[in-house]
């Protein structure tokens, strides 16, 4: 272990200890990301982001969506209970990152002794078609599935939403519900983040819903059973797959399997 790694690791530990007050609080800020080129194999680089008000540097590498060094990012997450010091920032986990349109000057740091993290396949990874799905046994009841989105996007988040959609479709195929209600939500209520007021476009709710409805049709759910709805002013929800990231939970699609009327 290099000297610089030890030094920064100690600093991180102190930061983590001194910030116990924010452990349970969700951080939300906009920043230009910094890429640290740690090389512990494929997909092992680190992503850092500095929070403007406090000046603290956070490790946002564990987000499902990684940053783009040419664009601003919206960071939403909480300080992780375990700080591994792998990248040189206070680790946020759970965390969501959204790539925003605003431009950034790209910046890359060398590893500087930080080891980064060897890539580990996320628990939520969709399996090949050749692998049989575990079909949920009957009886089948009304059930709702949730998909979560990056800010103002309708794109299925890789190794998160594709897995959640796959779970939903497996259930829908088994349960054969009379109706499938797909409701898209948009977080249209403006919020102040890093000195800026941000809100999702209302139309993204419909785009999200129609995109999922089309995916469901492509995956064999009968079109006539799918009903599409959309809503603005989405409120946070607390379900397991939201990972406790309150603000991100507003940006969602609900897939409601109505087995009974």
């Amino acid at each position: 272990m290099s000297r610089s790694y030890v030094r920064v690791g100690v600093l991180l530990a102190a930061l983590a200890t001194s910030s116990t007050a924010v452990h349970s609080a969700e951080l939300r800020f906009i920043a230009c990301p910094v890429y640290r080129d740690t090389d512990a194999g494929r997909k092992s680089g680190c992503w850092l982001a500095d929070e403007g008000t406090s000046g603290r540097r956070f490790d946002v590498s564990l987000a499902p969506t990684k940053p783009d060094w040419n664009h601003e990012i919206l960071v939403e997450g909480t300080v992780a209970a375990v700080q591994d010091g792998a990248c040189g920032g206070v680790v946020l986990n759970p965390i969501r990152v959204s790539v925003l349109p605003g431009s950034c000057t790209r910046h890359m740091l060398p590893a500087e002794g930080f080891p980064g993290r060897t890539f580990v396949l996320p628990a939520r990874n969709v399996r090949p078609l050749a692998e049989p799905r575990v079909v949920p046994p009957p009886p089948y009841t009304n059930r709702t599935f949730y998909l979560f989105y990056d800010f103002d996007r309708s794109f299925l988040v890789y190794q998160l939403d594709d897995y959640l959609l796959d779970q939903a479709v497996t259930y829908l195929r088994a349960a054969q519900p009379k109706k499938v209600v797909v409701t898209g939500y948009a977080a249209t209520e403006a919020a102040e983040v890093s000195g800026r007021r941000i809100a999702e476009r209302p139309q993204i709710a419909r785009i999200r819903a129609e995109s999922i409805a089309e995916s469901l049709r492509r995956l064999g759910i009968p079109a006539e059973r799918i009903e599409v709805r959309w809503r603005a002013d989405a409120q946070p929800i607390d379900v397991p797959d939201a990972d406790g990231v309150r603000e991100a939970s507003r940006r969602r699609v609900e897939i409601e399997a109505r087995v009974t009327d």
Partner: protein
Amino acid sequence: MSLLIGVPAAMTLAAAAPDRWWSPGEGRTFPAILDYDNASGTVRTLVSGGAVQTAGHPFFEPLGSTGRACVTCHQPADGMSLSAASARARWDTAGAKDPLFAAIDGSNCPTLPQAERASHSLLLDYGLIRIQRPWPPRDAAGRPITPDFRIEVVRDPYGCNSGPEYGPQARHPNISVYRRPRPVSNLKYLLAVGFAYDPKQGMALPLDPVTHRPLSGNLLADNRASTLEAQAQDAAATHLGMSRPLDANTLARIVDFESRLFTAQVRDNRAGALDADGAYGGPLNLERSEPGQLGSIGRAVWSEYAAWETSAGADVTPEQRAFRESVARGARIFRDRTFLISDSAGINSPIGFGNPVRNSCVFCHNMSQMGNDVAPGQVDLGTTNEPFADPLPHLPLFRVTCTGEPHPHYGKVIYTHDPGFALTTGRCADVGKITLQSMRGLAARAPYFSNGSARDLRAVVDFYDRRYHIGYSEQEKQDLVNLMSVL
């Protein structure tokens, strides 16, 4: 001691190679195993189910006004593609009257004097066929798509993107781009669907409107046709000059034949047999294997040569051993040598891998035994887009202006020699995306990349090295070239 231990048995399976060039309507028998030598060794095409009588077979017969057959641009000696060297040889033999050089797309533009070599320079020097796409793009049902970009012609070396008949301002607006013919072989791999979702589009895979099965999206450079049937109809209407669609029986015979072809290098001049001493190169293994497997969770990509890492054979010369070990190292480098991939749409956006992301060649070339993408493989490497593309003064240049959201990596304005996938989708974010293809039979079909911009395999490696600042050593480059030469 022979350098070709293990080869004679394999070679005797093949009949003596017939003439290299297959002209339309010759009526030859296409044998079950067909070998042709090339500069690296021998490429083999085998036909599942045995030999095919080509007399009267629609893959081999001229069907339309150009006098071409499918085989004209999908030659067995060229790995079922077409090399620029074969085009030149054909010019030297038959001249401008050969159907290969048909004015419609075998010349730089139909308006040029067809008897002159210069009018066919793109085909002769770069192996390029003219592809004319409608503008604005049309969907699979022929309905116009409203694009989110404007396109203007900056450079038009041959006049095929300007004037009353050609170009975006023509009476029937169109865009001419120039592309290499793709190999018609190993197609079960290109049609295989590994996952239900397209991570590059953030959607479930689209469905074949006929069979309602998910589409692989891995056939054509711009994904304008997603099934063999659609590809054949597209080719018949354009390259063959047919005025009517192929009928069902003709279509079925073409698709059946194409689906039974498997092609790979089977012998190398330096390595000897590619299925010797624990290796299992060659097409037979391709015919027998299950397609669509992701190398990272199954059989590692190019592990066909893993045995040569530790034992390159007992009865081999030092030169043979050295080459085999180089091939095995090349496979390792292909899988394990990571570098920073940046600003490549389809990799760094919109999917959330990050920009940049550290990975290796197999990040995209991830399908076992074939090296194409298990997911639909539309990616912008920069082979056609400035500033990453090499200078290509012989190709047209377009200025694309995004009218909606800017491109995630280029911004509002993109200069491109070929908008690629964007000519199918109408989306600015897809400008310059070209579908990954099979890496089999490469030694038989130079030049490389969709626009023929890499004259040999070394040029392919050099492009990647420049584009992503990889810093390959000379040995690593040679190992990669040697690997690709035996696929």
